[in-house]
C-alpha cells in the first residue's frame, strides 16, 4: 500500500516538475522590449522627381527656390506620404512627389504638369512634362543666373562702370561690349548716349555712377541651352529659331535699376550711331545669318511677356534700336528687376508642325534607364530629361512644347551627354512628311550595368521602420566628369529588400536596403548619386563597379532609425 507520505512526496515532485518548466519571463520581456512602430506608405503609381538646376553647371541649385505648379494634374499632386502636396518652396534643388492614383496617365489621356521656378538672382523659368504612363518621371527646370561671374561655354558676360548720370541725365555715355573668348565667339554691344534719362519703374531717374551688366549667348547648343526656356518660344508657344541673344541691366550706385528711359532732345546731345536720336543701340552677333531684316523679341521679366521688334543684320551682326516704347513696355507700375532680355530670331522659311505620325525611338535593348536627350536644330535647342528608351516619342515629348508647335525647317540632331545616342538626325521640311525614326543607343564597351545596394547608416541595433514600397524614393546619378544633367533611375530598376540575409525575429520586420540597377555607367569612374525621398536628400560620390554600396548618412535619413 502506498503511504500517504509517499503520495504527498510524489505530488510535490510533479508540481515542481511542471512549475519548474513554467514560463520564460526573459523571453517574454525580450519580445515586448523591441516593439516599435512600423509604417507602410501607400503605393503611388505615378511619381515625379523635380530637379531645379543651375543652367551654367547643370548641378542642383542650393538654397530656396519658389515653385508654382500648373497643368491638368496640378490639383492632383501628392507628397510621398500620399497627402495633398503643399510645396511652394524647394531647398536643395531636388524633390520627389507623386500624382494621385485616381489619375491614370495614358497615350490618349496624358497628364500634363508645368512647374515655374523663381529665385532671386536667376531668371525664372518653367518646364512642362507630359506623362503618358504610370511609373517614374523626371521634371527638370534650369535657371540661368542673372549675375554671371564666370564665362561658360556658349555665353560671355561683361560689366563696367563707364557711364554716369548727372542730375538724372546721362553725362558719360554707357558703352559696354563683350569680348570673344576661346569658349564663346559671339559678342554684343550696348550704347546708351549722353542726354538719355534712365528711369526706374516708378519714374525715378538714375544718378551718379552707372553700372552696366551685359551677357551674350551664341547660337550653339551650349549657348542656346542657357537661354531660359520661356525666352525660346514666341507668344504662340512656337520655338524661336534663335540667331543670338543678350541681356543687360543698368543700375546706379544707390542700387536703383533702370527699366525705362527718356531719349535725349533732338540735336542737343550726340546721336546714337546706327540708330535714331530717340533710340539706343544693341548689337548682337548672329553668326551665319545673311544680311537683311530680322525679328527680335524683347522679353519682359519676370513673367516673360514678349514684344516683337525688327532688327537689321549686316555682316553677321544684328543691330537693334531700342525705343522708349520698347522699354516703356515694361513700365507698367509693376516692380521690375530691370533686365532687358533680347532674343534675335532667324528670319527664314516659314515654320510648320511636324506630321502627327512622326515619332522618334531610342532603341536600347533590354534596358530600363532613362536618358537625357538634347534636340539641336536651326537656332533651336531643347533638352528632355528622363526619356524612356524603346518608346515611340513625339517632338513634343522631347521638347516639352505643344504637339501643335511649329518648328523651323532644317536638320535636327539628337544627342545625350554620355554619347550613347549615335547618328540620330531628323530632317524637317515644310510641309512635313510622316517619319518613324529609330535611333540606336550604343554605350562603349566599358560601360556596365552596376548593382547598387542602397542602405541607411543606422546605428547598431536600429532599423528604418518602413516596409513595403517606397514609391516616392528616387535616385539620380551623373558622371563626375560629365557636363550633362543628372539621370534618373527608373523605378522599375529599384527592388526593396526587407530583413538582412539570415535574419531572425524582429530583424526581418524592417526595410533593410534597396537593390538598384544603374545602367550604362563607366566602370572605374566616379559618379555623384543623390537619393531623394520627398524633401530629404543624401549625396554620395561612388566609384562604379559591378557591385557598389551606397550608404546614406544624411541626418534626414539616419534620424528615421529606431
Amino acid at each position: 500500500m502506498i503511504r500517504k507520505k509517499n503520495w504527498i512526496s510524489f505530488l510535490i515532485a510533479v508540481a515542481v516538475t511542471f512549475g519548474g518548466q513554467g514560463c520564460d519571463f526573459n523571453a517574454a520581456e525580450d519580445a515586448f522590449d523591441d516593439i516599435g512602430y512600423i509604417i507602410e506608405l501607400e503605393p503611388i503609381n505615378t511619381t515625379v522627381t523635380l530637379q531645379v538646376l543651375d543652367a551654367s553647371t547643370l548641378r542642383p541649385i542650393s538654397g530656396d527656390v519658389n515653385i508654382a505648379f500648373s497643368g491638368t494634374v496640378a490639383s492632383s499632386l501628392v507628397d510621398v506620404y500620399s497627402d495633398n502636396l503643399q510645396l511652394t518652396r524647394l531647398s536643395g534643388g531636388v524633390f520627389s512627389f507623386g500624382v494621385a492614383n485616381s489619375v491614370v496617365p495614358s497615350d490618349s489621356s496624358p497628364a500634363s504638369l508645368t512647374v515655374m521656378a523663381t529665385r532671386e538672382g536667376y531668371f525664372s523659368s518653367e518646364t512642362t512634362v507630359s506623362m503618358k504612363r504610370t511609373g517614374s518621371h523626371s521634371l527638370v527646370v534650369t535657371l540661368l543666373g542673372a549675375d554671371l561671374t564666370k564665362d561658360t561655354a556658349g555665353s560671355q558676360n561683361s560689366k563696367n562702370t563707364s557711364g554716369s548720370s548727372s542730375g538724372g541725365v546721362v553725362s558719360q555715355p554707357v558703352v559696354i561690349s563683350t569680348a570673344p573668348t576661346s569658349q564663346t565667339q559671339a559678342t554684343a554691344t550696348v550704347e546708351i548716349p549722353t542726354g538719355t534719362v534712365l528711369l526706374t519703374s516708378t519714374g525715378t531717374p538714375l544718378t551718379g555712377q552707372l553700372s552696366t551688366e551685359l551677357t551674350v549667348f551664341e547660337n550653339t547648343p551650349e549657348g542656346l541651352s542657357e537661354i531660359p526656356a520661356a525666352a525660346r518660344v514666341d507668344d504662340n508657344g512656337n520655338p524661336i529659331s534663335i540667331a543670338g541673344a543678350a541681356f543687360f541691366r543698368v543700375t546706379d550706385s544707390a542700387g536703383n535699376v533702370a527699366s525705362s528711359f527718356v531719349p535725349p532732345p533732338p540735336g542737343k546731345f550726340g546721336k546714337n550711331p546706327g540708330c535714331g536720336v530717340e533710340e539706343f543701340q544693341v548689337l548682337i552677333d548672329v553668326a551665319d545669318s545673311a544680311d537683311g531684316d530680322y525679328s527680335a523679341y524683347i522679353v519682359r521679366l519676370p513673367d516673360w511677356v514678349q514684344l516683337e521688334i525688327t532688327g537689321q543684320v549686316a555682316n553677321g551682326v544684328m543691330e537693334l534700336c531700342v525705343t522708349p516704347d520698347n522699354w516703356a513696355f515694361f513700365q507698367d507700375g509693376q516692380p521690375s528687376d530691370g533686365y532687358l532680355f533680347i532674343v534675335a530670331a532667324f528670319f527664314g522659311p516659314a515654320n510648320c508642325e511636324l506630321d502627327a505620325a512622326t515619332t522618334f525611338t531610342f532603341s536600347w535593348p533590354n534596358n530600363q534607364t532613362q536618358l537625357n536627350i538634347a534636340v539641336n536644330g536651326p537656332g533651336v535647342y531643347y533638352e528632355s530629361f528622363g526619356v524612356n528608351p524603346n518608346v515611340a516619342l513625339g517632338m513634343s515629348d522631347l521638347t516639352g512644347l505643344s504637339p501643335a508647335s511649329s518648328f523651323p525647317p532644317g536638320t535636327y540632331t539628337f544627342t545625350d551627354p554620355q554619347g550613347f545616342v549615335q547618328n540620330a538626325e531628323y530632317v524637317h521640311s515644310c510641309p512635313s512628311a510622316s517619319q518613324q525614326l529609330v535611333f540606336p543607343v550604343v554605350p562603349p564597351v566599358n560601360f556596365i550595368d552596376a548593382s547598387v545596394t542602397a542602405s541607411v547608416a543606422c546605428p547598431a541595433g536600429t532599423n528604418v521602420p518602413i516596409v513595403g514600397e517606397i514609391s516616392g524614393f528616387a535616385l539620380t546619378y551623373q558622371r563626375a566628369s560629365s557636363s550633362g544633367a543628372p539621370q534618373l533611375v527608373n523605378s522599375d530598376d529599384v527592388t526593396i529588400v526587407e530583413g538582412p540575409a539570415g535574419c531572425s525575429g524582429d530583424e526581418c520586420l524592417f526595410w533593410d536596403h534597396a537593390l538598384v540597377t544603374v545602367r550604362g555607367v563607366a566602370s572605374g569612374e566616379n559618379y555623384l548619386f543623390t537619393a531623394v525621398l520627398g524633401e530629404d536628400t543624401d549625396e554620395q560620390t561612388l566609384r562604379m563597379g559591378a557591385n557598389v554600396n551606397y550608404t546614406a548618412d544624411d541626418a534626414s535619413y539616419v534620424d528615421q532609425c529606431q
Partner: protein
Amino acid sequence: MKKIPFLIIATLLFAGTSYSQTRVGIAFQASTFGPGATVGVQIVPGVNARVSGYMASGSTSDDVTDDSNDVTVAFDADITLGGVSLLFDWFPFKNAFHLTGGVFYNNIGAEFSGAPISEYKYSDSKTFSADKLGSLSGEFKYPSIAPYVGIGTGNIVTGGRVSFVFDLGIAYVGSPEFILEGQGMIAPTARHAATINKGIESFKYYPFLSLGIGVRL
C-alpha cells in the same frame, strides 16, 4: 466564443444518479479564474464530481503621451477571466484531502486597442494627422480546453454541513495566442505579433488557486 452553461453539465451529472441517493453540495469561491460557484455530487463513495463556473472582467482606458515624439495615444483594454470546469475529486485517505483531475473550458483573454489622438510632427514641413497614422488593436487568448490536476481540501458533498474548500493545481492551457491588427500607416506594426507569440509560447501552464465556502445540501 461559445459558452457552455455549467448548469447543463450539472443536469447531466444528476441524470446519471438516483435522486433519493444523490448527495449534493454547493460552494462559492474566489479563484485565479475569478469568482465562481460550484455544484458537486458523489459519483461513488470516495469520488465526487464538481461543475464550476467562474467569471470576472475588467477594463481600463488611458491617454498616454510618448515623450520621444509628443504623440498622445488613447488606449483601451478589456480583460476577461473565467471558464467552466468539470473536475473529479478522489479522497484517498477518507478525509477532506483530495486529489483532483478534470478539464477547464478556458475563457481567459484580453482585448485592447490604441490609436493616436494627436498629430505627429515629422518635420518642420510635414505633420501627420491622427487619422493618417492609424490604429492598432489586438487580442490575447488561450486555447479553449485545458486539462487540470491538483490537490485540495474540503468535501462539500459528504463532509460537514458547512466546510472550507481549498484547491491548488495546474491547468495546462497551452501556448497563448497574441493577435495584432493595424490600420493606416502603422498597420505593419502588427508584424510584431509573430515575435511576441514566440516570446510567450512557454506560458502554457496556468495556476489554479481557489478558496471558498461549501454547503452540503
